[in-house]
């Protein structure tokens, strides 16, 4: 017979109060976890995209920066073109140390390798590339040869086959990239040579050819010289090179950042409202429940429970209920978000990376802490009040 035992028995008895605290904790912790998960995950995914880009400036055809950003962040297929002479113009700009062109291509609908309708493909120039090549050398010990590709996490070779077949062209999957939390996980990297070869062959073999306009490129990645200011170089590119828009890498994905912070503030608002309402609700329900039981609490005081013991016993109950509710709420939120992450990515319009288990655990702890602080705040006053009542008075009536 301990105080804890008494508290546990009490939990099952005060069903309404117990459910109220449990569900409020569940809601608050679940929302807190969802907010953390989505905003932190989006932040991580964004940073990864900037990181992976590996360039100081990306030069795209004028006015196409938003579509290119969404292609590079979300893997949304895009077709933008500019004359390939632009690369020479960019190289001539002061402060540019390296420049390399890329082609953005879209695969046929419903390719066998992938679950997306249209697959985004990036073709790079191994001669000048400084972003993909280093990764390949480090991880594969060399660049890609003709017919070889590197795929996003979810690109796979169909069951029972050796190659990925695209436009009736056989590709060898050399490696998979780390997850990004967007459709980039379904994209592919290949050399310009492979892309052109595939395009040429597709005219004879495929139902629908892969069209790469003659003498066109999609984007130019720029590395600035040591000590040069990327912003100044970008301004210079804007002046010297016609028909292009340079984007400095820290300013990449600006529209997504705006969207993200808007989504974040509305989630924080919803969370605060839920927290506030829960606190008021719990405080009310808890006051009512303790008021109903004041005679019993008077009896416990007579049997030797000190005021502190009464407060402790009531708080222990609230803490147990909150922990149970918060953990279940957080786990449900995590499972829900995990299951519907693709839907959420397309719905909210920005990608997010699901965190590692340890990251998830720390989010869970934060959610639990918020719920615990809230509930304790709500129940401390009623608990102290009932412990301070005159036991003799409480036992009358």
């Amino acid at each position, binding site marked *: *017979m301990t105080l804890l035992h008494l508290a546990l028995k009490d939990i*099952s008895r005060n069903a309404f109060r117990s459910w109220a605290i449990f569900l409020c904790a569940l809601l608050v912790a679940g929302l807190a976890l969802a907010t953390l998960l989505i905003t932190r995950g989006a932040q991580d995914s964004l940073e990864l995209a900037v990181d992976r880009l590996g360039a100081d400036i990306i030069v795209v055809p004028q006015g196409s920066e938003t579509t290119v950003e969404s292609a590079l962040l979300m893997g949304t297929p895009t077709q933008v073109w500019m004359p390939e002479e632009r690369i020479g113009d960019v190289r001539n700009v002061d402060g540019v140390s390296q420049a390399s062109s890329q082609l953005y291509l879209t695969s046929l609908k419903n390719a066998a390798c992938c679950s997306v309708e249209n697959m985004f493909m990036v073709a790079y120039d191994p001669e000048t590339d400084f972003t993909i090549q280093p990764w390949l050398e480090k991880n594969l010990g060399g660049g890609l040869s003709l017919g070889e590709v590197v795929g996003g996490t979810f690109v796979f070779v169909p069951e029972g086959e050796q190659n990925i077949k695209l436009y009736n062209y056989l590709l060898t999957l050399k490696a998979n990239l780390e997850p990004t939390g967007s459709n980039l996980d379904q994209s592919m990297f290949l050399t310009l040579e492979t892309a052109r070869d595939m395009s040429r062959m597709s005219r004879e073999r495929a139902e629908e050819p892969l069209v790469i306009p003659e003498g066109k490129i999609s984007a130019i990645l720029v590395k600035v010289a040591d000590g040069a200011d990327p912003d100044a170089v970008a301004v210079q590119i804007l002046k010297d090179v016609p028909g292009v828009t340079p984007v400095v890498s820290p300013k990449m994905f600006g529209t997504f950042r705006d969207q993200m912070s808007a989504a974040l503030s509305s989630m924080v608002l919803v969370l605060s409202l839920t927290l506030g309402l829960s606190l008021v609700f719990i405080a009310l329900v808890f006051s009512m429940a303790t008021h109903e039981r004041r005679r019993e609490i008077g009896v416990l005081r*007579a049997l030797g429970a*000190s*005021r502190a*013991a009464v407060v402790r016993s009531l708080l222990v109950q609230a803490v147990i209920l909150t922990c149970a509710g918060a953990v279940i709420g957080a786990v449900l939120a995590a499972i829900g978000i995990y299951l519907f992450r693709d839907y959420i990515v397309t719905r909210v319009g920005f990608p997010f990376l699901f965190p590692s288990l340890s990251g998830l655990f720390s989010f869970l702890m934060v959610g639990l802490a918020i719920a615990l602080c809230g509930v304790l705040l709500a129940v401390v006053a009623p608990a102290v009040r009932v412990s301070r009542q005159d036991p003799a008075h409480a036992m009358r009536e």
Partner: protein
Amino acid sequence: MKSEAMTEEAASSARQGAPEIADAGQPSAEHVISVADVTKRYGSKKEVQVTAVDTVSLAVSRGEFVVITGRSGSGKTTLLNLISGLTTPTAGHVVLDGVELWSLSDRQRSRLRNEHIGFVFQFPSLVPSLNVLENVMLPRAFGGNHVGDDVESRARMLLSTVGLEEKAAAHPRQLSAGQQQRVVLARSLVNRPTIILADEPSSNLDETTEQEIMELFERVHETTGVTILMVTHTSQLISWGTRSVRMAAGRIIGDEPVAQARSTQD
């Protein structure tokens, strides 16, 4: 009250409290309960004030069985609550075995209540979510470790004393009112108290059950030598005690030993 059973804190507070009582010229050391000029007034505004207990003094020696009678509203319950420290006196002193109650902290006072006072209430007071055995053991949840025995076997022994050992696993709502009061009596004894305060323990019971409960009190009194203060609703029960105290309008209007009248009665 055995002073070695008290906490160090309680004991030191007792030493501090003692001279105050000596100054008041009241006997204390040989008395288990010593109430000196205690007044309890309810209500804050002068015109609506009720003096529930009015300058009452009462000294009770170890082993007495005091039966308190008086009309409804005469202050009997309030007096018991003052003795147990459940309610604060407006004036006067309450001393239990030399310890001034209101010189203690809430924790010390609760501890003293837990270890030295057993309660039997007029209303149903078992915790509904606990079974009978757990209810009997309940006071140990708040201390009572001084008793130093296995609480469960003691609780079972007490249940068999009140004739309810087979109801140990039952819940209070499954018991009759009389059975519940017997469980409450068992609960009041679990920490081997020096005092039992019983407030109209049989007022809700039929005559046969009342008789059984009173016999139990008598047996407990005889076998343990515990001091009992019992408020009763009818003066017919006075003969169960060793001393009769009568109250009216918050004052004690009669206080006399009970001759061994009851045994000659039946």
